[in-house]
């Protein structure tokens, strides 16, 4: 069988959360609101350990939209980390972002689109990008790990220099299959 699956260098696979972290630091991100996701584990750990960053664990993802709006009212930048199922929780609260034209940077790890074991992740995966777009969010779907940092960097500029809401969707294929011990 012929396959076009790209061969990923182990270093690139391991380091993409570190690359995002560096981009966010360079982009003066001071707040990290998150609902945990396995795909975000390494990035969340780095954010939580960073004493210059306020890390906020949320009970539900839409809390982060309000939180980051408040931080922006005081002149500070933040990021919302979530998985695709959490996008569904955000829909009406995204009216805050569009009506007041707040900047918003979301980094979404996709579930339910590639080698998924949980059937309930699939419906929201199909609706993630479209529902964000319906609410006025600019979406960037990243398929290759080596592109992630560059897309997040562009997202930072887009959000905070152009007062846009931006969601970077990291594909499940790039993340790899879920390992139960991670």
């Amino acid at each position: 069988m012929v396959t076009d699956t790209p061969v990923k260098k182990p270093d690139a696979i391991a380091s993409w959360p570190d690359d995002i972290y560096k981009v966010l630091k360079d982009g003066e991100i001071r707040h990290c609101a998150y609902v945990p996701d396995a795909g975000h584990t390494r990035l969340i750990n780095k954010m939580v350990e960073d004493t210059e960053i306020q890390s906020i664990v949320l009970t539900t993802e839409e809390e982060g939209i309000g939180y980051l709006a408040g931080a922006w009212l005081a002149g500070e930048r933040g990021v919302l980390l979530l998985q695709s199922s959490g996008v569904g929780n955000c829909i009406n609260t995204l009216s805050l972002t569009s009506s007041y034209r707040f900047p918003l940077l979301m980094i979404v790890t996709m579930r339910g689109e590639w080698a998924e074991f949980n059937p309930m992740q699939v419906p929201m995966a199909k609706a993630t990008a479209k529902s964000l777009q319906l609410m006025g969010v600019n979406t960037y779907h990243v398929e290759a790990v080596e592109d992630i940092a560059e897309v997040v960097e562009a997202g930072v500029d887009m959000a905070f220099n152009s007062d846009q809401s931006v969601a970077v969707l990291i594909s499940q294929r790039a993340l790899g299959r879920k390992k139960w011990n991670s």
Partner: protein
Amino acid sequence: MEQLKDCSNHLSGLARREVVAELLKDRTDLMVVTGLGAATYDVTAVSHCDLNFYLWGAMGSAAMIGLGLAIASPDKPVLVITGDGEQLMGLGSLATIGVKQPNNLAIAVLDNGHYGETGMQKSHSSFGIGLHKVAAACNFAWADEITELSAVADFRQRVYEMESGPVLARIRIEATNEERVLPTRDCVEIKNRFRAARGLAV
């Protein structure tokens, strides 16, 4: 299972605009976030100011906006003024605030036990669910029910103390609708005015 009985006694509550006037008396650098609906109209009527962030929607978000503002402005007081229905929709935010323990965040819930904007349907508050008890369980430094105007004045002192941690007052008000005094509907202007008042680029 039987539903909790209606235990509301809202006919004897405080007048909402007197409460808001007491909360905002002698304000200086106070930043205020208002929950959509009557809380927004009350604050507009009583104490319009560029450092008021008025919500027209995003129900359930007022306390979280207050948290972001408080964490990013650690030396300045932040007061969220909202209704019981709005805070009930953001119940989880009380837990999130309890984790962060900001000293400079106060929440005043104007509790009439009803959804006044939509036809006065009873809220959970009318059935004995106590937002002050939820806040206490979420490790707020102070959380209690207020039924007297003198206690509102005491709560105002707590807003400016900024020493112990987040505080929440469930203030029992009359279930009445006041004249609507509306802020601008241009939400971008509300945001830009606020940021300009903070000395930020808009």
